[in-house]
């Protein structure tokens, strides 16, 4: 202890080597100061603790500082756990090679030509007769065999290679894990791998790669040098997503390029781990920015220059950088994260199919970038396409009108194309790779549907196929428990289709017409088994079941979605299926359903052979025509996505001439009609409806959708024709939220247009109120009529109307809130905007507005809500007049003007 000036004391802490981190902790355990290797600081007198840390090893020493005194403490040498056999390291403690220098010397003895040497040192618990490691040299695609030799219990192999990046692949148990190794001119790169002592954990090879130690040193490498220890400690510190403590300027100047690179990435990772999302932009404090920038400048003159790992540093600090090509993968996982973030802000990060294949198998890590090499034929067919679908799921849901599920495929591609930023963030891919993925994106579900159709066509053409007819209700139905649509196409494809295949049957959807039609009667007569979904009390399904029972004397196989009330089939076995939102559809026991179908088909009596063959051929042709229509749908939707709706409508008209459509069976006519609906082509819908078979044209779905098409015409007389169609539907099936909502919409539009003068307009407003009121009364869980009822009541503005408005608000709020619980789509969110507008809650309204605008939606959807808000602004009710000043900007935002 020696004296120093004044009342303060002085503390000098010295680590045993330059890789030791030193900490000074005060008497209440607060960290006073930290440094690398040495710390020299003036402190208040008191009691302190010195901590010396080397990797995961810690050494503490407590001491008192008297006024004016100096305390000097030297840390004792520590060993650090590492895969690399160096003096001063151990793995495990009792297994350090007796002669480390001999081992490293053996690694360096290598013949041949090349700029640098790569050595792999491998050790396991027992003998490793055939080390499962290969190297792919820089610029090559084929792996090269390694000349293994055993030294001091280690397997050692070295190659002399041209400078660049080589890929190391470790194969075991069918998986092939890869990582990169830099090859530097005049340097030896050594990778020490310790095969995992943990067995049966499923990640032995991955664990070995992640825990491996990389060393780079001037050739030939020598063991025990402090700089190599430094590199190992820097790796262990970065593995914990932090940087080595800041060295002195003198020490930093002596850092090897690898240690410098690791430390600079540690600075980035330490910042990144505090972000709520690992890809958020890094906002570095000035000190950190300067350190990273200085490291970049130094690394530009080393053998690592121009590598992705170095250029990523420049991008992180927004300094000028060279373009990065990810087809040459980086060394560090931190680099990948930095590059993804940089690409989101427009920095040049390139990559093609090779990089995308690597990204598909990438293992996230805090240190080394590792990936599983896959045999997939082309990118986009594997897990990434499923992940894209998952990220876009709410927007892929069918709309309120029933659309065939194959219409969804182009929508998936379009959404993916329009949301590359969101997807890049969600999948942690740089923008360029995301664009490559979208270009190669395959819709797995669409492919599966096509494959199923292909199998059905083959089976039907065999002439001996047994047919299972499936009667599923049309139109999208809402799960009352969660307010989400039930995907009945998925029930058909993924449940019934598979169960029928297991039973040796071909599942065919029943025509979308009643039993009075000849088409339906023939199908029911020739089918070998019948499946009827009883989830909803659908008259078409019930009549089909009755017809079947009367004709064959056999009971259909009944299905029902779990959670829905039991259908009216007492005594019959009803097979439930789970349709939990977000997890798809499934049978609890698919085997029992297949058995029931098989039993039912076994009792069937085959009808006349030649006619049956012709019928099977017609079914096969129908499947083919549906596939052709799917191809047309893809082209039409592509144009629609490019905002070329008139061109899309023209294409439909050209490809679907009247004589073709008129000759089609009803299911194709309906599909064509709904395809026009999907692109809001009202004229096309009217045209196809005019060509339809009368029994299809009389179906509920066609009449409802045709009424909507007539409303879009904006011609009062044709709109009234639509209203008459809907009135007939209501007369037939009774009041329901959907039909009442459509009818209310027509009257509301007529009132807004003011057609027929003020008196007539007033009557139409009253009709609109009445329709929405009846819709809400019959479907209290459906927010659509409820939200509209609130709007038109405000438009009316009389005391009675406002009293009703107040009474309805809680009910509508409840219906809307139910829809928000499970990944809401645009409609659910914008319903909250309308509800909050009706409640005149500005904050809530604006809050949901932002969420709505974030959700993908079409222009007309925003326009529809904006129109309702305009109605509120124009109301005579004083409270709404007062709210108009904040409601108008919301309507403008929905129209995209702000």
């Amino acid at each position, binding site marked *: 202890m020696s004296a120093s000036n004044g009342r303060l004391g002085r503390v000098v802490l010295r680590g045993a080597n330059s890789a030791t981190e030193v900490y000074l*902790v*005060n*008497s*209440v*355990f607060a*960290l006073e100061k930290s440094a690398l290797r040495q710390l020299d600081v003036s402190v208040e007198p*008191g*009691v*302190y*603790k010195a901590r010396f840390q080397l990797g*995961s090893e*810690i050494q*503490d020493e*407590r001491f*008192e500082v008297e006024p004016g005194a100096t305390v000097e403490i030297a840390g004792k040498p520590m060993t650090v*756990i590492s895969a690399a056999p160096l003096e001063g390291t151990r793995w495990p403690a009792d297994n350090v090679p007796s002669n480390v220098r001999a081992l490293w010397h053996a690694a360096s003895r290598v013949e041949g030509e090349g700029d640098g040497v790569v050595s792999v040192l491998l050790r396991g618990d027992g003998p490793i007769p055939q080390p499962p490691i290969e190297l792919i040299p820089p610029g090559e695609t084929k792996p090269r065999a390694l000349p293994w030799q055993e030294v001091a219990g280690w397997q050692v192999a070295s190659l002399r290679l041209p400078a660049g990046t080589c890929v190391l692949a470790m194969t075991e148990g069918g998986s092939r894990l890869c990582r990169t190794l830099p090859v530097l001119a005049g340097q030896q790169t050594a990778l020490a791998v310790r095969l995992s002592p943990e067995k049966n*954990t499923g*990640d032995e090879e991955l*664990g070995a790669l*992640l825990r491996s130690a990389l060393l780079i040193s001037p050739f030939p490498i020598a063991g025990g040098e402090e700089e190599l220890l430094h590199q190992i400690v820097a790796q262990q510190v970065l*593995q*914990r*997503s932090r940087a080595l403590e800041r060295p002195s300027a003198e020490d930093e100047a002596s850092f090897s390029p690898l240690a410098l690179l690791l430390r600079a990435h540690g600075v980035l*990772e330490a910042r*990144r*781990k*505090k972000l*709520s*999302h*690992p890809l958020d932009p890094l906002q570095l404090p000035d000190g950190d920015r300067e350190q990273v920038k200085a490291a970049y400048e130094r690394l530009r003159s080393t053998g690592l220059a121009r590598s992705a790992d170095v250029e990523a540093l420049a991008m992180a600090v927004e300094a000028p950088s060279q373009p990065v090509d990810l087809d040459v993968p980086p060394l560090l*996982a931190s680099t990948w994260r930095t590059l993804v973030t940089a690409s989101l802000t427009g920095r040049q990060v390139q990559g093609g199919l090779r990089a995308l294949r690597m990204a598909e*198998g990438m*293992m*996230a*890590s*805090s240190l080394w970038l*590792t990936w599983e090499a896959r045999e997939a034929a082309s990118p986009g067919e594997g*897990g990434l396409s499923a*992940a894209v679908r*998952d*990220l876009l799921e*709410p927007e892929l849901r069918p709309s309120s009108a029933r659309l065939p599920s194959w219409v969804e495929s182009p929508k998936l591609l379009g959404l993916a194309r329009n949301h590359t930023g969101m997807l890049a963030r969600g999948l942690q891919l740089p923008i360029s790779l995301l664009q490559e993925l979208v270009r190669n994106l395959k819709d797995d579900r669409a492919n599966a549907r096509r494959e199923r159709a292909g199998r059905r066509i083959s089976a039907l053409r065999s002439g001996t196929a047994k047919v299972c007819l499936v009667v599923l209700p049309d139109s999208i139905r809402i799960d009352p428990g969660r307010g989400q649509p039930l995907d009945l196409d998925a029930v058909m494809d993924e449940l019934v289709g598979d169960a029928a295949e297991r039973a040796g049957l071909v599942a065919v959807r029943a025509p979308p017409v009643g039993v009075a039609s000849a088409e339906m009667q023939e199908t029911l007569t020739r089918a070998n088994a019948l499946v009827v979904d009883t989830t909803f009390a659908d008259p078409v399904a019930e009549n089909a079941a009755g017809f079947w029972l009367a004709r064959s004397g056999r009971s259909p196989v009944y299905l029902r979605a779990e959670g829905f009330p039991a259908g009216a089939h007492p005594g019959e076995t009803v097979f439930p299926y789970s349709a*939990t939102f*977000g997890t798809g559809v499934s049978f609890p026991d698919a085997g029992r359903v297949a058995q029931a179908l098989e039993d039912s088909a076994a009792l069937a009596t085959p009808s006349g052979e030649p006619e049956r063959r012709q019928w099977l051929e017609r079914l096969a042709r129908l499947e083919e025509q549906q596939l052709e229509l799917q191809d047309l749908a893809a082209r039409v939707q592509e144009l629609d996505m490019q905002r070329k709706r008139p061109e899309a409508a023209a294409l439909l008209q050209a490809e679907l001439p009247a004589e073709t459509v008129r000759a089609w069976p009803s299911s194709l006519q309906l599909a064509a009609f709904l395809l026009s609906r999907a692109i809001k082509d009202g004229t096309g819908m009217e045209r196809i409806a005019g060509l339809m078979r009368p029994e299809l044209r009389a179906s509920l779905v066609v009449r409802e959708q045709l009424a909507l098409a007539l409303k879009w015409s904006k011609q009062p007389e044709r709109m009234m024709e639509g209203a008459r169609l809907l009135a007939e539907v209501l007369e037939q099936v009774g009041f329901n939220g959907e039909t009442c909502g459509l009818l209310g919409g027509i009257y509301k539009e007529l009132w807004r247009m003011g057609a027929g003068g003020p008196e007539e307009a007033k009557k139409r407003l009253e009709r609109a109120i009445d329709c929405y009121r009846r819709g809400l009364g019959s479907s209290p869980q459906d927010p659509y009529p409820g939200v509209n009822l609130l709007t038109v009541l405000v438009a009316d503005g009389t005391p009675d109307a406002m009293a009703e408005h107040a009474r309805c608000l809680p009910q509508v*709020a409840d219906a809307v*809130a139910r829809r*928000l*619980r*499970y*990944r*809401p*789509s645009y409609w659910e969110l914008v319903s*909250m905007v309308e509800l909050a507008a009706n409640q005149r809650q500005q*904050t*809530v309204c604006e*809050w*949901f507005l*932002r*969420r709505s605008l*974030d959700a993908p939606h079409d222009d007309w959807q925003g326009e529809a809500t904006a129109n309702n808000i305009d109605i509120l602004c124009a109301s005579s009710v004083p409270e709404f007049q007062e709210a108009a000043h904040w409601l108008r900007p919301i309507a403008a935002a929905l129209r995209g003007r702000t």
Partner: protein
Amino acid sequence: MPDTTEKKDHFALIVGIEDYQEDELKGLKGAKNDADEFYRWVTSPSGGAVPDGNVRLLKDSTIEQIERAFLGLCEPATTSGYAGKRLYVYLSGHGVAQDVHEASLLAADGGRNARDRHVPGWHWLSWFLASGYFSEVILFADCCRSVRGTWAVRRFPLDPINRASPARVRWVRGFAVQFGGKAIEEDEGLRSRGVFTRALLTALEHARQPDGTVTARSMSNYFFNSPEVTKWRRYQAPSLLADVGVDDLVLSTGGAEPREPVAVLVEDGERPTIVGGPKRPEPWVVRPGTRPGEFLAELPRGIYVAKAGGRSKPFEVPGGVRVDDVRL
């Protein structure tokens, strides 16, 4: 005066899973104990002071049950955009990590054959950061973080909300291990406990500042110095992070700064002096003990030096851990 009033706008969701459906995941013994212990702390007036009705304790639950519980937390916000001031989420059981930010608890019906059935703690808590449903979110996960880069992170059952709330959400995130590490449980007589949860609860109880509060920063300091954490450092180094802004985030206000008994044994029986710990001008009070040369003191957490007869001995009072006799 400690504030022990109930925090009516604080909520907690606690999940402990031991009974896994997949055979290879059976064998955990401490996860439910740990969940119970955390429940006791979070509802204790001197701990989290969360009203019992605001806490959901789930044991051996499936992913659907856990999702429902999370959605239940969101319900109050569906109309107002705000669900409460603070949300605690505690997870214990088997886990994996898909990336450096993640600790995903496997649900009782999850595992290698049902990879989608997991709760990605940070991903789901991030949903709350973005939504602003709570002003403060606190996550503790006592589970392994074995690297599983190919397991898709299960999405939160509600759609993302992109920074809809202007309010800044403060957060604390405590993981049992660093990315890629394995969490350990240890037998304690008749029961088992997770090493991390034991250290966590000790910290929540003992990392008190002189004003009696436990804060995110005092927790962080506690972990840095904890002998329990240091003991396991080669196998399990916990990760505690916080983004609490300029003001520290107070986790508990309900207790006085605890004092630990310390015995100093002086060879020649001279009364020792003890200095250090929280700063004060005079030495700490010592009183004679019953053993020869023994002197006793009650000391708050800190680093001290005992002195007598020209000799001195530094020692630590880490808090919540018995202090060995100090011999002079």
